[in-house]
């Protein structure tokens, strides 16, 4: 019986070096600014991976929320407790000295980086500015650590797409089952729906969720010590990954046996009497759906059925939906329209996104280059750009 081949650690680290460091960087600031030179890019990645992502005090909490249409992101600003007019002060050092005497902990010398400093350092490193700041930076977030309204942010589609891109890379690298990919996303989505987490822990959650999904689905799960620690570019320890595993399990009450779109997708593809192209297209659209929070409002079975329907539309299969598919999926063509349109809209924009590993995956000849085929025009709103 063949066991999973052992990959040399060096090869593994080299393979993940760029995607992982960029993943860490992206989670902190949605996307790195364009670098002026190749070595600046490397430096930026190294800085971000090497430095602590968020200050011990300044916790930015991330909560997963499904986006509401036409809703602008609301930034809640903290109520100012006491305004210090720095310009009016004759001597900044004196103000700081006085504050120290009063015992205001905000003005003690920080041994850690603040969130602002991390972002600043990252962008400066990216642009090649290396001269150190001469003045001490005041931590403007430390008073608001316990104020949830101030620190809550939305984990939006960008974060989800970054996570998904990274997951597909890992998934391909370890040659994992598709079930593992879907279950990982399911675990992360459900955990973030019930728990506010600091942004610095997002990747840790992803890794622990992947660990759980591999244990649940795989015959030979990759090992924690050899593989999962390397996945984070050693940003998290062996122990942190396993502690987070227990936290997630407790929060989800150990419920991992869940309906995922894939279970339905395989069934509906079979009912569609598919050729390889249709199968690949349905998988592509289903995985695109997983990248976006907009699909969360639909049942997994509906996402799967819509992926098959949209795939049939894209490939001009006649009829687009038939009695067999209606019987086995439980959905009529009309019921699938909204969700199918959503998947097709993702297809029409995916090539222009920064996070497009799923697009590249299905642009491979092995996958029939289905990502490069035009999306289902009959499901696109008039006047919208297809690729």
């Amino acid at each position: 019986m063949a066991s999973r081949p052992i990959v040399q650690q060096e090869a593994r680290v080299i393979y993940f070096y760029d995607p992982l460091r960029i993943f860490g960087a992206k989670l902190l600031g949605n996307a790195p600014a364009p670098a002026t030179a190749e070595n600046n890019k490397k430096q930026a990645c190294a800085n971000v991976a090497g430095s602590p992502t968020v200050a011990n005090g300044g916790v930015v909490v991330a909560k997963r929320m499904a986006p509401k249409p036409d809703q602008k992101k609301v930034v809640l600003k903290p109520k100012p407790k006491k305004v210090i007019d720095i310009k009016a002060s004759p001597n900044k050092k004196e103000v700081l000295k006085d504050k120290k005497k009063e015992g205001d902990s905000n003005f003690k010398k920080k041994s850690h980086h603040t969130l602002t400093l991390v972002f600043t350092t990252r962008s400066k490193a990216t642009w090649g500015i290396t001269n150190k700041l001469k003045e001490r930076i005041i931590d403007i977030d430390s008073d608001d650590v316990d104020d949830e309204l101030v620190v809550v942010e939305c984990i939006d589609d960008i974060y989800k797409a970054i996570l998904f891109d990274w997951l597909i890379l890992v998934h391909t690298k370890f040659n994992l089952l598709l079930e593992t990919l879907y279950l990982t996303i399911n675990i992360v989505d459900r955990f973030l729906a019930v728990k506010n987490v600091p942004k610095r822990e997002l990747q840790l959650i992803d890794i622990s969720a992947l660990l759980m999904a591999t244990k649940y689905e795989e015959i030979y799960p990759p090992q924690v010590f050899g593989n999962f620690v390397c996945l984070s570019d050693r940003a998290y320890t062996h122990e942190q990954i396993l502690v987070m595993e227990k936290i997630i399990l407790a929060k989800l009450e150990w419920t991992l046996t869940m309906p995922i779109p894939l279970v339905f997708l395989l069934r509906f593809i079979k009912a569609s009497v598919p050729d390889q192209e249709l199968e690949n297209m349905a998988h592509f659209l289903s995985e695109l759906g997983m990248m976006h929070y907009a699909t969360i409002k639909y049942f997994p079975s509906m996402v799967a059925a819509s992926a098959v329907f949209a795939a049939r539309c894209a490939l001009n299969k006649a009829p687009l939906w038939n009695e067999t598919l209606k019987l086995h999926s439980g959905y009529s063509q009309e019921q699938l329209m909204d969700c199918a349109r959503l998947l097709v809209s993702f297809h029409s924009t995916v090539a222009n996104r920064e996070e497009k590993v799923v697009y590249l995956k299905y642009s491979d000849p092995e996958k029939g280059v289905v990502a490069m085929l035009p999306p289902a025009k009959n499901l696109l709103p008039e006047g919208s750009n297809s690729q």
Partner: protein
Amino acid sequence: MEKPGGGGVLSAKEAFEKLEKVGEGTYGKVYRAREKATGKIVALKKTRLHEDEEGVPPTTLREVSILRMLSRDPHVVRLMDVKQGQNKEGKTVLYLVFEYMDTDLKKFIRSFRQTGQTVPPQTIKSLMYQLCKGVAFCHGHGILHRDLKPHNLLMDPKTMMLKIADLGLARAFTVPIKKYTHEILTLWYRAPEVLLGATHYSMAVDIWSVGCIFAELVTKQALFPGDSELQQLLHIFRLLGTPNEDVWPGVSKLMNWHEYPQWNPQSLSTAVPSLDELGLDLLSQMLKYEPSKRISAKKAMEHAYFDDLDKRHL
């Protein structure tokens, strides 16, 4: 990062008083215990979490997750709680809190063997119906048990209630069935497709086990007591005949297929002489070589063998 487990929740040590050790599994011991708050007797399944290694074992992860879904069925053992504690070395230990059942089918059969009595036919029928019902419930929820054997079937000897337990090897399956490990299931109850190295298998592996248990209930002896994979196959072939492409299309393409001694099929009544005609018919449908031809648990419940059984309280 927060600590796992709520602050106000009692630990296993605080909540339960261990009474005696009743068994031992792959990942730890099983205790009979008393819940201090209610005085209720429970079974505590202790699982070591290898923090220094791989964390929660896959078997525990699957078992708890699957039981969270299946525990509401009367023929699946009820998982009441999951508690966390620490052992003497300070290592994390997980306690699965189950309803306590007095005995299991293995002990039940042994007690009849030791006294030289036969299990009453209506008792066999009732137990088999409950087993089929429990297996049908698991399969209906997309779960393969993969380790059905008398030891994993808990019983209340007073009410003759039977419950499926130990879902450590169970797993959810998808349609079409994907590759699974073929290193599952105790040898005596292992289906021939698994013994021959099939990695794509389905609900039929559980039905084979049910058939073996059925015969064992009647004869009080294991039907195919092999002590190695090869011996196990030979036991099966001696009774059911050596399979070929006619009776089981695709058998010769399985990974572990070799040229085996050629035996002709025997009548099942030679192995299970005291079983009536309807029982033999059901058993033969459970022990079909070709997995797709094996009866399903749901269909087995509708078999004429169970027609004279009062099913109201089962």
